[in-house]
């Protein structure tokens, strides 16, 4: 969406050289090209997200009026402080971060694979994180200070495994996806195996976690996720820039002197870490990483998949799905992953049927 420009660049007739649809923003020595439509979409998505946030804080076992919710959010005294601030807000923050992380992760991996079908769910990352976490749980590691690292390790090793076995004189997207699906199935079985081996209560807990649920999630789960996201912000700024290079086809990039290998590896690594941490916090919330970048990309119509809009869309999807999951069959609460899969899987099928892949 934004791209730093050298000020020394020759600009004899700036108005005409500017690509259509862009505006130049200047701040002191630096100037940026802003894609007008992308900015408008990001603002719009932020508004949608804000409305979703307020709505999910309002609705629940008891209804709280939006004005009270806003008062609590602004830190003013309110009779609904307990319900909104203590009960609903931690869950909301977790959902927000999880959705944003999945959205960005999907955007990065889809950019590198140049294939809208490649999402962390499909290539085995979330299943790897899931299998590692369930295994750790059955061996008695239930501390929330350790589990996120376990799930990152699991997600990364699954990704490396898939990468290594799909490599055959080059990385072919098709082979990558097929190996990923196979590995996902095997990891799913492994997870079920450890579910049957573990203590009954742990198994129950792990089973709910595996469907991807925000039930009972709070700051304990959100804290490591927030930490990772905060640490990764500089890396993400780099990623937004690097994305443009990866969009070039291989021969053009080589001719321009861009070393695609390390850039791709970096972007993939970022995506895998984000998806794994998010999985560690809420379990594999299926298809958010597939859906969010696609929707954002269709809205902005930019050349590359927009990161910020993907994050906003991902967060909105998870919050809306969680709201529905809480209220649809109330008092029974569905795991949020059930709803995202029920929407995301048909969307994936539609993508396959249309077969409009960017190669």
């Amino acid at each position, binding site marked *: 969406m934004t791209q730093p420009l050298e000020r020394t660049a020759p600009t004899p007739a700036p108005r005409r050289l500017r690509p259509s649809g862009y505006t130049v923003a200047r701040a002191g020595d630096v100037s940026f090209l802003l894609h007008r439509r992308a900015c408008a979409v990001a603002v719009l998505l932020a508004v949608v997200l804000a409305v979703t946030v307020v709505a999910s804080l309002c609705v629940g076992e008891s209804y709280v009026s939006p004005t009270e919710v806003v008062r609590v959010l602004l830190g003013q005294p309110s009779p609904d402080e307990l319900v909104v601030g203590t009960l609903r807000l931690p869950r909301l923050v977790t959902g927000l971060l999880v959705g944003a992380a999945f959205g960005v992760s999907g955007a990065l991996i889809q950019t590198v694979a140049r294939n809208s*079908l490649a999402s962390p*769910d*499909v290539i085995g990352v979330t299943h790897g994180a899931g299998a590692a976490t369930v295994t750790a749980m059955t061996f008695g590691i239930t501390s929330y200070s350790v589990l996120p690292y376990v799930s990152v390790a699991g997600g990364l090793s699954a990704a490396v495994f898939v990468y290594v*076995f*799909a490599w*055959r*004189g*080059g990385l*072919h997207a*098709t*082979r990558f*996806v*097929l*190996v990923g*699906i*196979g*590995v*996902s*199935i*095997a990891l*799913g*079985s*492994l997870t*079920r*195996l450890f579910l*049957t*081996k573990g203590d009954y209560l742990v198994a129950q807990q792990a089973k709910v976690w595996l*469907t991807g649920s925000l039930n009972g999630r709070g700051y304990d789960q959100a804290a490591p996720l927030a930490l990772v996201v905060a640490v990764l912000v500089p890396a993400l700024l780099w990623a937004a820039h690097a994305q443009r290079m990866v969009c070039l086809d291989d021969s053009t990039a080589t001719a321009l002197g861009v070393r695609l290998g390390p850039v791709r590896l970096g972007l993939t690594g970022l995506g895998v870490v984000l998806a794994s941490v998010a999985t560690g916090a809420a379990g594999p919330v*299926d*298809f958010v990483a597939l859906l969010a970048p696609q929707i954002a990309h269709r809205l902005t119509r930019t050349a590359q998949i927009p990161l910020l809009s993907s994050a906003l869309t991902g967060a909105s999807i998870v919050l809306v799905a969680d709201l529905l999951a809480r209220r649809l*069959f109330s008092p*029974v609460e*569905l*795991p949020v*992953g*059930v*709803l995202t*899969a*029920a929407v*995301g*899987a*048909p969307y*994936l*099928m539609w993508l*396959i*049927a*249309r*077969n409009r892949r960017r190669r």
Partner: protein
Amino acid sequence: MSHATRRRIGWTVVGTLLLFLAVLLSLALGSRQIPPAQVFDALLHGGTGDNAQVVRALRVPRTVIGVMVGLALAVAGVVMQGITRNPIAEPGILGVSQGAALGVVCAIAFAGVHTPAGYVWFAFAGAGLAAVVAYAVAGSGRGGASPVKLALAGAAMNAFIASVVSAIVTTDARALDEFRFWDVGSIGGRDGEVAAQTWPFLLVGLLLVAVLARGLDALALGDDVARGLGHPVALLRGLGALAATVLTGVAVAVAGPIAFTGLAVPHIARALVGADHRWVLALSALLGPAVILVSDVLGRVVFAPSEVPVAVMTALLGVPFLVALVRRKATVPA
């Protein structure tokens, strides 16, 4: 007798011996090791000791069910790969097994059906629906049903059905209780009655496939050639899909979803006896049960005294196979 025929007969004999060995292992090994002599004694002369009781009451039903499931899945795999001309077609990967599972859940939760003979019909309906949708999705658009599109459509199918199943069992505790024992894909702990109730369906599926074998050979040459040879292509595909659906439905109704057997066995058989479907089907029918039984025995032994469900074992054993298959040039043209 030509060299090729001798080789085929040779491998079929080897397959028969392997199956025999697998049956013997399945009867003899477990949390209680029983010497083969006592197994034969129990089966043939009606021995009366504890060991004979274990063999007759527990291990014989389990082995029979294992043979049925392996047979059904392997033959269904051959037929699916034949009618789609796609090396990666398989009940588990295409989501057909999950479709059958959804049928069973609906039968338990909404129709109040609790016997395998009753819910096998629901399994058929679910399997058929899932197969049609997955194939229609993969087949539309540019390029037809390539392996990756088929696998992705199947993965999407699996995810969707899993979420629907999860929604049903989360809101219906009684269904969950009945379903979770069946969902793991195991051939242990099933009643011998299950086999008695479902074998006619298996037989119908197998007979249908036997009739279609020559047609599958023609389909392998391409639709145009098959039509030129006088085969009704659309009818062949339809009947083949029906047979595969019935076989998958039987296997799933009996044992729950089991992946990868239908993928690996046909490829092994084809590598051994060539492309002629009659031989491939015969050898797959021998190797499928052997694979299921050996996986089941391994599952009983590795974590003894507790057991690993056979579906977990086949998935773990099957992945290296899938990876090898995908790395071949023929599957994914670079």
